[in-house]
C-alpha cells in the first residue's frame, strides 16, 4: 500500500523536503463538507495559500479583490430517507476493543461514523467508554487496513478465496488432518454459534484459544480447578466494602475496566454514601489501579503468590478452617504488620470483601478463589453464576505447536488472533506454518501473522459489522454497523458460515439466532418489535433465573503452594499491557499512541520502568537504553525511572515494536513479547531471572509531563475519610491568598451573566486517570496527533490532559490525578493580553478562542496560569483522505499559527440549545454533555449551568469539597475541583 504522505513526519527535514508544501492544497480551517453538499476538492489556489502569498507579496492591495475559486455542490441523486445532510444519526452498538464489550452509541454524520460514545442504558458499562473504545472510530479510517482478500499477498476475488479454502478444508478433513481455528476467548454468542457450525462441518476441526496476556485463561482455568467450571466470574466492585487486588489493574486493563471503574467509584462515594470501600493493592509496579489504592504494598512479582498464600493462611486461621497442606509462610519482604492489616481488613468485612489478582498465573487465581471462598464473598462481590463460560474444549497454543511439529495439521485459520507477534513462540509458529497446506487469517490488516499465511480474508472493523455479546448473564447486547464496509472485507462469521457450507449473511444469521434463542427468553409478542427495540437500545436485559454456582473445592489448592520459593536472580521482568495500546492490537492508531500513559506519561513508545533507588544505584536516567536479556532473547529498551516500582522489577509494556501494523505503529517502541517466558506450555509474562545491562546509548522519551511533584502547592487537595466525615471542608481549608484568607478585592466590578453560565466540576476522588476523556476530547474536537518528535518537543495538542502528581516516598508514593482543561476563568489572563481580540469572554461565561482571528502571538499561552493553550506549530496533517473522514464537521480544523484550547464543547452546547429552542422549552440540567464528561467511566466530570441553582454543577460548586485553582490570582476559574478523599486510616471508614 502506498502512503502518499507520512501522517506523522519524523523530522522537520522530511517535512521540508516535501516539494509540494507551499502549493499543497489545504483550506484554511478546512471543514470537509458532508456528502450531500460536497465541495470540489480545494485546488492549488486555496484561500490560505492566497493569504500567504498576499501577506508576502508587495502587490497585496491589487489582488485583494480577487474572487475565491469556484466551488461545486454535489447533491445526492437520490437521498436516503434517514439522512439529512447536517444532522447526526446515532446507532447503539457494542464495542469490540477488548473482552469487556461495553455498550456504545455511534455518532454518524452524513453517513460517516465520527464519534464513539458510551451507551448510558448499558447496565454494565453504563455510559463509559475507555480510550481504546473511543479511538476505534479512527481505526475505522485507518489507511493501513487491508482493502481486499489476498492469496500470497496478491488480490483475489472472494469467490476464488472461498473455493480455495473450501477445497483445502475438505482435503484436510478427508485426510484426517487437523483443522485448527485460532481465536480469542470472547467472540459473542452468535459468533460462537458460527464457530460451532464450522466445527460441526469439519470433524477434525478444533478451536485453539489464544489470548496474548493470558489473564482470562488463568481465571477460567483456576475456576475449573476450584469450582469445576471453565468460566470467568462477574466481579461486583460496587458491592465491595473492602477490595484487595494482587496486581490486577482492574481500573486500567483487567477484564472489564470501564465497568469496574464505575463500580469502584460507587463503592467509594464518600460524599454521597458517607462510606468508602478501602482498597488494598499489592503489586510489583505502579499501575493505574495501584495509583488509586488507599494502601499499596510493593512486592516482587514472584512474591505476589506468596503474599496471597500467606493471606489465605491467615484467613483460614481466622475462619478456624484447616486447609490441606498449608505451609507456614516463607520469609517475605512485606512486613508482618502489613500482612496482618490486610487479613484483618478483609476479615472484618467478610462477605463485603473482594479479592482479585491479575496476571497469567493459575495458582495465584486458585489462591484468590480460596480467599474469596474463605471470606464468603462468593455470590456477592464475585459471582460465578453471573459470569461467562469460556470454551472448555479449546486447545492451547502449545498444543497447536506440538501438532504442527508432528505435521498432523492440514489447516490453520487465524480469526482475530496474531500469535506470531504476541507469543514468544511466534517465530517457531511462523516457520511451522509454511508446511501447512491451508493457512489463513482474517485480520483487518496485513499483520505479523498474515505475512506468514497463504490466504488473507480481511474482516471489517466493529463499526462496520454485526455482532453480539453477553458480558453478564442476562445482559445481551447487539453490535450493529454504523457504516457499510469501507473496503472489500467480510466478517469472519460470514466467512466461517461460507466455509462451513452454510452461506448466510451475518445479519440474517444473527437475527435468526436471536429469534430462536434470545427472543424466547425475553418474552413478548412480536419478534420484529423486539428486534427493532433491541437495535435501538443496543442492549437487552433478559430475566435471570436464580442459579446455583458450584461450590469451592479445596483439591487444587495444595498444587498452588508448589513452587513458592522466590526464584534467584537480581531482576524480574514484568510484561504488562498499557491502558492505551493494550496487547498491541489497536496500536496503529495515532490517538492511542499519543495519549500519555496515565502513570508513566509516556507516549509513542514503551520505556521500561525501573525503581528510582535502583536507577540511582546503576546511574541510569530516563532515556538510557538498557539491554534486557531473558534466556536467549534480548531486547534493548530505554528506561523510565518510575516511582512505586519494586527495586527488583523492570516492567516493559507490550504492544509496541509492531512491524506490520501500519504506518503509525510500525517501528514505534520495541516488541517485548519475545521476552515472555514459556512454562508448562503457557506464556508467562512475569519473567524472573532476567539480566539488565546499560548500553550507554540514549533514546529520549516522549513524555508529556516531566515534573512529578506538587512542590507543596495547593493545586490538589485531599482529605482522609474520617476527617472528611467530620468536616466536609477537610483538606480544603487552604484558601486563596498566599497565606490563607481568600480575597475578592478587584479594581473592577466584573460582568454580569444573566443567561446561562457554563461550568465544570471535576471530582478528584472519582477520577482514576484512565484518560478516556483525553481521547474523547481529541475525537470530538478534531485535535491532531502530532507524532513522537513533536511530543518530544513538548508540543502535544491535547486540549485536555491529566496531570499526575506523586507525594511522599518515591519508593511507594501516593498518586493523584487531576484532569486539566481550560479553566474558563472569569477574569481570564489570556484574554487581556491578546492584541487582536481573538480570545474574549462569551455572554455565557465561556472563554472563547476565535481561531480565524488569531495571529499567533502566543502571549495568551504564556499568560495562562494552567498552560492549557495549544499552539499549531505546523499544519498538522489531515491530508490522508480516508482519515479526514473522522473529522467532526461541527468543529473547524485549525491551521498552523493559531492558538487553540478547550471550548467546553461549545458546539454541543449550541446544538442542544438550538434543539431546545426549536421545541420551545428550557434546557434541562445534564442535557448537555461535554465529550470528556460523556466518556468518563467514573462520571468524575459534571457540566452544567451554575446560574441554575438546581443544577448539579451549581450544587457541587458550593460543596465543602469544592476548590478552584489559583484563587489568589483572582482569575475566577469556572472549573470546580472536588477534594480527593482517601481511606488510608485504620478501620475508620470501611
Amino acid at each position, binding site marked *: 500500500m502506498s502512503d502518499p504522505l507520512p501522517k506523522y513526519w519524523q523530522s522537520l527535514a522530511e517535512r521540508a523536503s516535501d516539494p509540494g508544501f507551499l502549493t499543497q492544497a489545504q483550506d484554511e480551517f478546512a471543514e470537509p463538507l458532508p456528502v450531500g453538499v460536497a465541495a470540489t476538492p480545494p485546488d492549488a489556489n486555496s484561500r490560505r495559500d492566497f493569504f500567504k502569498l498576499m501577506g508576502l507579496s508587495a502587490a497585496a492591495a491589487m489582488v485583494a479583490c480577487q474572487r475565491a475559486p469556484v466551488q461545486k455542490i454535489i447533491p445526492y441523486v437520490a437521498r436516503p430517507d434517514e439522512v439529512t445532510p447536517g444532522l447526526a444519526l446515532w446507532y447503539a452498538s457494542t464495542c469490540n476493543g477488548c473482552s469487556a464489550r461495553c455498550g456504545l452509541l455511534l455518532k454518524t454524520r452524513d453517513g460517516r461514523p465520527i464519534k464513539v460514545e458510551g451507551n448510558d442504558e448499558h447496565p454494565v458499562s453504563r455510559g463509559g467508554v475507555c480510550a481504546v473504545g473511543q479511538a476505534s472510530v479512527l481505526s475505522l479510517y485507518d489507511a493501513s487496513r487491508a482493502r481486499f482478500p489476498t492469496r500470497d499477498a496478491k488480490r483475489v476475488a472472494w469467490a476464488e478465496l472461498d473455493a480455495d479454502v473450501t477445497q483445502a478444508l475438505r482435503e484436510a478433513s478427508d485426510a484426517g488432518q487437523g483443522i485448527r481455528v485460532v481465536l480469542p476467548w470472547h467472540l459473542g454468542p452468535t459468533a460462537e454459534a458460527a464457530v460451532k457450525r464450522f466445527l460441526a462441518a469439519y470433524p477434525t476441526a478444533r478451536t485453539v484459544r489464544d489470548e496474548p496476556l493470558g489473564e482470562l485463561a488463568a481465571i477460567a482455568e483456576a475456576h475449573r480447578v476450584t469450582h469445576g467450571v471453565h468460566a470467568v466470574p462477574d466481579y461486583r466492585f460496587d458491592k465491595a466494602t473492602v477490595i484487595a487486588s494482587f496486581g490486577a489493574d482492574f481500573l486500567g486493563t483487567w477484564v472489564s475496566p470501564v465497568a469496574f471503574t464505575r463500580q469502584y467509584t460507587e463503592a467509594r462515594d464518600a460524599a454521597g454514601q458517607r462510606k468508602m470501600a478501602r482498597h488494598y493493592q499489592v503489586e510489583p509496579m505502579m499501575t493505574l489501579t495501584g495509583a488509586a489504592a488507599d494502601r499499596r504494598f510493593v512486592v516482587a512479582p514472584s512474591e505476589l503468590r506468596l503474599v496471597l498464600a500467606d493471606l489465605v493462611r491467615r484467613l483460614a486461621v481466622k475462619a478456624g478452617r484447616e486447609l490441606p497442606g498449608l505451609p507456614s509462610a516463607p520469609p517475605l519482604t512485606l512486613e508482618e504488620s502489613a500482612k496482618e492489616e490486610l487479613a484483618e481488613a478483609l476479615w472484618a468485612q467478610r462477605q463485603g470483601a473482594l479479592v482479585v489478582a491479575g496476571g497469567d498465573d493459575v495458582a495465584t487465581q486458585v489462591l484468590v478463589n480460596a480467599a474469596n471462598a474463605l471470606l464468603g464473598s462468593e455470590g456477592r462481590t464475585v459471582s460465578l453464576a453471573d459470569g461467562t463460560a469460556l470454551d472448555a474444549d479449546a486447545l492451547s497454543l502449545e498444543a497447536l505447536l506440538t501438532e504442527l511439529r508432528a505435521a498432523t495439521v492440514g489447516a490453520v485459520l487465524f480469526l482475530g488472533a496474531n500469535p506470531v507477534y504476541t507469543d514468544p513462540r511466534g517465530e517457531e509458529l511462523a516457520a511451522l506454518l509454511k508446511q501447512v497446506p491451508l493457512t489463513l487469517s482474517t485480520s483487518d490488516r496485513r499483520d505479523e501473522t498474515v505475512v506468514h499465511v497463504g490466504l488473507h480474508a480481511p474482516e471489517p472493523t466493529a463499526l462496520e459489522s454485526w455482532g453480539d455479546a453477553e458480558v453478564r448473564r442476562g445482559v445481551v447486547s447487539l453490535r450493529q454497523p454504523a457504516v457499510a464496509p469501507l473496503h472489500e472485507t467480510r466478517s469472519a462469521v460470514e466467512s466461517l458460515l461460507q466455509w462451513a457450507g452454510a452461506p448466510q449473511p451475518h445479519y440474517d444469521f444473527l437475527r435468526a439466532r436471536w429469534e430462536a434463542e434470545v427472543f424466547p427468553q425475553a418474552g413478548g409478542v412480536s419478534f420484529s418489535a423486539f428486534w427493532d427495540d433491541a437495535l435501538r437500545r443496543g442492549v437487552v436485559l433478559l430475566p435471570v433465573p436464580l442459579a446455583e454456582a458450584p461450590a469451592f473445592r479445596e483439591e487444587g489448592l495444595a498444587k498452588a503452594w508448589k513452587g513458592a520459593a522466590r526464584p534467584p536472580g537480581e531482576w524480574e521482568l514484568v510484561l504488562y499491557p498499557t491502558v492505551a495500546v493494550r496487547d498491541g492490537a489497536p496500536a496503529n492508531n495515532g490517538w492511542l499512541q499519543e495519549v500519555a500513559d496515565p502513570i508513566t506519561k509516556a507516549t509513542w513508545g514503551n520505556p521500561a520502568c525501573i525503581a528510582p533507588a535502583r536507577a540511582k544505584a546503576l546511574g541510569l536516567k530516563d532515556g538510557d537504553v538498557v539491554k534486557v536479556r531473558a534466556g536467549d532473547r534480548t531486547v534493548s529498551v530505554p528506561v523510565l525511572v518510575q516511582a512505586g516500582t519494586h527495586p527488583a522489577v523492570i516492567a516493559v509494556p507490550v504492544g509496541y515494536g509492531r512491524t506490520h501494523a501500519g504506518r503509525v505503529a510500525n517501528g514505534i517502541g520495541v516488541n517485548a513479547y519475545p521476552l515472555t517466558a514459556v512454562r508448562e506450555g503457557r506464556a508467562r509474562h512475569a519473567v524472573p531471572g532476567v539480566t539488565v545491562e546499560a548500553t550507554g546509548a540514549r533514546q529520549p522519551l516522549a513524555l508529556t509531563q516531566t*515534573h512529578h511533584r506538587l512542590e507543596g502547592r495547593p493545586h490538589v487537595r485531599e482529605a482522609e475519610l474520617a476527617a472528611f466525615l467530620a468536616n466536609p471542608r477537610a483538606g480544603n481549608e487552604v484558601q486563596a491568598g498566599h497565606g490563607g484568607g481568600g480575597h475578592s478585592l478587584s479594581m473592577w466590578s466584573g460582568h454580569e451573566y444573566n443567561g446561562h453560565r457554563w461550568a465544570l466540576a471535576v471530582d478528584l476522588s472519582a477520577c482514576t486517570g484512565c484518560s478516556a476523556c483525553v481521547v474523547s476530547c481529541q475525537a470530538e474536537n478534531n485535535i491532531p496527533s502530532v507524532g513522537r518528535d513533536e511530543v518530544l518537543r513538548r508540543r502535544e495538542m491535547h486540549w485536555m490532559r491529566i496531570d499526575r502528581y506523586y507525594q511522599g516516598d518515591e519508593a511507594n508514593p501516593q498518586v493523584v490525578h487531576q484532569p486539566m482543561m481550560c479553566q474558563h476563568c472569569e477574569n481570564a489572563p489570556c484574554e487581556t493580553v491578546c492584541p487582536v481580540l481573538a480570545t474574549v469572554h462569551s455572554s455565557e461565561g465561556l472563554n472563547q478562542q476565535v481561531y480565524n482571528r488569531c495571529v499567533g502571538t*502566543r502571549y495568551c499561552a504564556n499568560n495562562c496560569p494552567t498552560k492549557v493553550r495549544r499552539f499549531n506549530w505546523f*499544519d498538522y496533517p489531515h491530508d490522508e483522505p480516508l482519515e479526514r473522514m473522522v473529522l467532526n464537521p461541527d468543529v473547524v480544523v485549525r491551521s498552523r499559527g493559531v492558538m487553540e484550547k478547550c471550548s467546553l464543547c461549545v458546539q454541543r452546547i449550541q446544538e442542544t440549545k438550538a434543539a431546545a429552542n426549536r421545541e420551545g422549552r428550557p434546557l434541562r440540567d445534564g442535557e448537555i454533555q461535554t465529550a470528556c464528561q460523556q466518556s468518563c467511566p467514573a462520571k468524575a466530570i459534571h457540566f452544567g449551568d451554575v446560574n441554575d441553582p438546581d443544577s448539579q454543577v451549581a450544587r457541587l460548586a458550593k460543596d465543602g469539597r469544592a476548590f478552584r485553582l489559583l484563587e489568589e490570582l483572582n*482569575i475566577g476559574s469556572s472549573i470546580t475541583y472536588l477534594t480527593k478523599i482517601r481511606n488510608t486510616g485504620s478501620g475508620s471508614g470501611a
Partner: protein
Amino acid sequence: MSHQHLSSLREPLVTEPRTLGQLTEEICAPMERPPTWKWWVAFGIAVAVLGTGAGIVGYQVATGIGVWGLNKTIGWAFDITNFVFWVGIGHAGTLISAILFLFRQKWRTSINRAAEAMTLFAVMCAALFPVIHMGRPWLAFWVMPYPNDRGSLWVNFRSPLLWDVFAISTYFTVSAVFWYVGLIPDLATVRDRAKAGLRKAVFKVMSLGWTGSHRTWSRYETVYLLLAGLATPLVLSVHTIVSMDFATSVIPGWHTTIFPPYFVAGAVFSGFAMVLTLMIITRVVLGYEHLITLRHLENMTKIIIVTGGLVSLAYATEFFIAWYSGNPYERFAFMNRAFGPYAWAYWIMVTCNVVSPHLFWFKKIRTSPAAIFALSLVINVGMWFERFVIIVTSLHRDFLPSSWAMYTPTMVEVGTFIGTFGLFFTLFLLFVRVLPIISIGEVKSVLGFARDGHEAPQHPPAKPVAEEPHPVAHRPVAAVPLAIATRKDAPV
C-alpha cells in the same frame, strides 16, 4: 550679546580645533571618497549575514513557528528576548540625543547622529521580531485598528502587545523624524559640496531647500528642543511599555512592579554599551579620534557605571521582594532563576551586568578604548542574557508543575538573531557611507565654544581642498570670486 559662561578649566569637547571649513571637509570627506576595501569587506559580510537571516526567516514563515524550539509551556524565548534586546539597544540613541540635549550636555554632539541612527536600525531589528514571531505574520496588519466588514472588529487596547505596537511605531517615527530634522542642515552642506549629478540631485531633494537662513535656524532650534522634550518621555515610555508585556502578566517572575524603571535602566545600560561598541569602531576606522574623544568615551563609561548600578539594584530588589512578599510562586521563580536548570544563564547575566561595569572605576580601563570596547561587548552579552533569563526561566516553571518544561533554541532561532546583526550592520555601514555621521552643524557650534576659550593652535589643514568653484545655487552670481579666494584663509 554674550555666550553662556564656560569655565576655562573645561576641556575642549573637540580636540585639535580647526576651522569651520576644515571641519566640514573632514566630516564629509569619508562619504565623498569611494569606499575602502575594508568597508567593502565589512559590508559584504554584513550583507551575507543579512541575506542568510532573511532566508532563515523566509523558511520559518513558510514552514511554521515549529522550526523554533518553543513548546506548549515556553511560548516566547529567542524571539522576544531579541526584541527586548534590540529595543534596549535602541534606547541610548534617542536618549543621548534628547536627554543630553535637554541637559545641555554639549559633549553629545559628536556622537548623537550615529547614536540616533543606531536607534533607528536597532528598532528596525527589534520590530522584526513581533512580526515574525506571530504564527501568521501575513495577518500582522490585524493589530491596527481600522474599520472593517467584520462588524467592525477592532483591537484589544487592553493588551500590552498593542501598547507595544503603538509605542514602537511612535518611537520609530519620532526617532526617525528627530534624526531627519537634525540631518537637514548637514544634508544641505553635503548638497552644496556635491558636483552636479545624482548625488547632488538626491541631497537636493533630501535637504528640502535648506538655505541656512537664520529665521529658519531659529525655528529649527525651537523644533529641535520640542522634539527633544517629546522624545525624552517617549524613550522612557517605550521601555516601560515593553516591560509591561511582562509586568502586567500573571506569571511569577514577570508580574512585578519594578519592571518599568528596571527595564529603562537596563535599556540605557545596554544602549550605551552598544554606542560605545560602535563609536570605538567608527572613530578608529574613520579617523575621528579628535571628534569622538576619550572624554566622550569616558563620560559614557560613567553612565554605564550608574546604570549598571541601577540594574544591579533592580536584581537585588527583585529577590528581596520575592522573599518579602511571601508569595511561594515568586520565591520559587527566583530561586529557580539562580539555582534552577537555567542558572548558568543567570550567572552569566550577573557576571556581565553586575560585576563587569565596576571595572570602569579604574581610570586606566576607563581611558583605554580597547578595554572599553571589550567591556561594552560583555555588557551587551549580559543584557541579552538578562532578557533571556526573565523570559525563559519565568515561563519554563510557572504555577502547575505538570507543565514545567525546558527550552533549547534551534539553529533557526540563532540564525535569525545573527541575521538581525546583518541587518543592523548593513544599515549602519550604508549610513556611514552616505550620510555625515557626525552632526556638522552642531559640532561647528561646539567648535565655536572651544575656540572662544582657547587660543587655537596653528596647524595645517587636514588636506588640500580641490581648487574648484564652490557651487553657488543655480543662479550665477556676478561678484563672488572673493568667496573662493578666501577659502584657505587662516582662521580669523
